């Protein structure tokens, strides 16, 4: 059926898969600009290489299958998402090879859009993490802190993990006492907030959270500007472009677990984990809103999505607490991508059993 004008219904919703993909890519544009502001214009090449490679790969595949699929925007989105996971100063061959792997092996080899069994961008990221672990964990300090580009440093999460002593200090204080660099902006804003707002409540905001929220820290391109990610995700949720249940459940479960048991960092005890620090690091928010609810690999149905989000939250927590590397969210989602269909089948059989039980009762 080629033309849909001859078949009912004759009116359609405004949403098309291509439109949603392009809008989703559009919400990542501010992130691209912000990362260029933070780490210098050279980071634009990382985004560019990743997007162009995935588009090029898609075009080559299109030429072979004789189906022109660049218009659906999925290649561009995959490229953007992949670049978002890359560190700013990464050698450009890494995003290039990873993007080619993502499109060619994970997507095209299994039948193109709609048939991929893993999120292509995440699979590309995992490919990069496995092959170039050192390069993928080398971050640089933003220009706002140092005044120049390209001074390498470890991310706050790895830094604090390497700290051993000082168990009586909270994370932020521990970071400060170890003289982890802070931006002047953060110090000013925190002081302002403490004087004007938090002091009235009898509490105090430690320095450093503003930096984390705005991305004034060493980190991957996409996890840098949380404010931008949150605005983009609100936009996506309000247009119902992503399944809201998955990210919301995932983040809630993750936060609750972190609060209850802590992530094993200094100053965290039972019932007093640092939720903000956990959410602001390791790209959890970005993964939750842009990666986890990807339609092809996530299950359908409200209950299935809830269970999917729940397990994702637990896995994210487990990887954050006990895994050697901080990118646990990526692996958590990949694992759930693979387990998703089995989960759906299992829930289906449970539902069937329940309805049969009910009928038998009648």
């Amino acid at each position: 059926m080629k033309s849909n004008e001859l078949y009912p219904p004759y009116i359609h919703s405004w949403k098309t898969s291509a439109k949603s993909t392009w809008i989703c890519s559009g919400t990542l544009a501010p992130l691209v600009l912000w990362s260029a502001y933070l780490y210098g214009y050279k980071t634009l090449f990382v985004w560019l290489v990743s997007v162009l490679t995935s588009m090029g790969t898609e075009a080559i595949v299109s030429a072979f299958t004789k189906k022109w699929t660049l218009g659906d925007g999925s290649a561009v989105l995959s490229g953007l998402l992949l670049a978002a996971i890359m560190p700013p100063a990464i050698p450009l061959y890494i995003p290039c090879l990873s993007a080619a792997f993502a499109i060619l092996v994970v997507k095209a080899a299994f039948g193109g859009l709609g048939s991929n069994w893993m999120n292509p961008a995440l699979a590309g990221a995992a490919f990069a993490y496995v092959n170039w672990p050192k390069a993928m964990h080398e971050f640089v300090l933003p220009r706002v802190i140092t005044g120049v580009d390209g001074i390498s440093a470890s991310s706050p999460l790895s830094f604090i993990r390497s700290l051993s002593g000082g168990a009586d200090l909270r994370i932020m204080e521990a970071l400060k006492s170890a003289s982890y660099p802070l931006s002047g902006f953060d110090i000013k804003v925190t002081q302002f907030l403490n004087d004007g707002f938090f002091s009235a409540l009898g509490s105090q905001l430690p320095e450093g959270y503003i930096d984390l929220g705005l991305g004034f820290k060493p980190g991957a391109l996409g996890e840098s500007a949380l404010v931008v990610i949150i605005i983009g995700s609100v936009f996506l949720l309000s247009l119902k472009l992503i399944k809201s249940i998955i990210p919301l459940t995932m983040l809630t479960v993750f936060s609750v677990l972190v609060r209850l048991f802590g992530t094993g960092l200094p100053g965290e005890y039972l019932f007093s984990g640092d939720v903000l620090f956990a959410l602001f690091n390791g790209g959890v928010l970005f993964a939750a809103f842009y990666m986890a609810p990807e339609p092809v690999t996530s299950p359908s149905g409200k209950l299935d999505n809830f269970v999917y989000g729940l397990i994702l939250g637990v896995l994210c927590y487990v990887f954050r607490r006990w895994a050697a590397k901080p990118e646990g969210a990526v692996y958590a989602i990949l694992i759930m991508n693979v387990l998703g269909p089995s989960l759906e089948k299992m829930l289906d059989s449970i539902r069937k059993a329940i309805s049969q039980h009910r009928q038998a009762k009648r």
Partner: protein
Amino acid sequence: MKIRGFKHGGIDSMHRVSFEAKSIENAFLPLNALISLRNGPGLAEAEAVVKLGDQVLEGQLLARSTGANSSNMHSSIPGIVRRITQIKDAGSFDSLAIKISLDGSFSVLGKRPERYRWKALNKGDIGYLAQDKGVVRVSTGEPLYPALSKMSVKQEYTLILNVLELDPYSRVEESLFRLRTMDVLDGCAIAARISKPSRIIIAIDERYSAKTLSKIREAIDSCELDAKLQLFKHKIPQDHPRQLALALGINKDDIFIVEPSSLISLHEAIVSNKPHIEQYVFVGGGAIKHPAVLKARIGSPIGDLIEECGGFTSKPYTIVLNNPFTGRAAPDLDCAVGKTTRAILALTESEAKPAPERPCIRCSDCYEVCPAGLKPFLLHKLIQLGKIGEAKAIGLDRCISCGACAYICSSRIALVSIFDTAKKADKDRGQN
């Protein structure tokens, strides 16, 4: 008052085009009327009783019913039988059709309508009149009387006067009920006389203004009919029999649904002794200059009616007969108004929002809106793989073809028509 609605699925976020008919205009008589002898797919053809070249009067019998699935057809205009040919109806079913060219004088038009007192008639007389005048159920095209009379053997059943029109455009039932409330209620009383329902429910859209509602309530109170007004949620496909029964919490075999337009034609047949030769049609959609509800003769070409509404403002993308969700596309502007035509919608491209078909991305929006709780994306995949048995196991037969899934599908897969084709193929296989 409690607003009823079905729980699972449905589309409720659709913008409704604003339109309120002030009056119902008579459309001009067509120069040629093409009268199809079959009212719908799956129904029987009436048997023609006129020959080529015959002079016919307005309202004269053209074809006689051959059984429960066909209805008497009358000439809608005075004239000469020009042609009796096989046509492909807009619903893509074949039918014999009689073409009449306007000629001679009018007998029905211009005459004051007669008013008979139907209350003295018994069920048999009413039934004879309704059958003789070719009254059909406008929603399906089957004759109204046999269907209604079948319900009368039931101990308990609910007659539902369905005034719900939930798509963004159609307004004919709403306008008829608002402008000719007394006639519709009178028609409802006749239907009740035939089938003896245990209760009568008038299904109304929750979005009616308080003013209109109180007017309707007054009208119901002033007549003897013991009918209850019930508001329903504005959610597609609430007007479907299954969803109405679900919302009311009763078995779908225990309801009979009838529309104001069917009741008006029943009323006119019994009270004014008029055959079913006129049809109330809403002409609208974004490409029509002055949308209106017209009283058109059966057999009028839809192009004439569109012209009467000021023609097109812009190039229409599709012209749809009836509901844009379950209706059908008109092949050209010459196709004729039939007994089941209630709306002619000329939709612009920005309303139709076509897009190239793309592979399913399992966004599961179709699952969210499916009122039967099916997984259309999974059904589609199974049908593509030829696994009809598995598709049936997960509920292909429960699909009510409401079109919600294909409306929402962001990959623009023609889900409903694929399901309909599969269901039909499966049925054919079962028969052989």
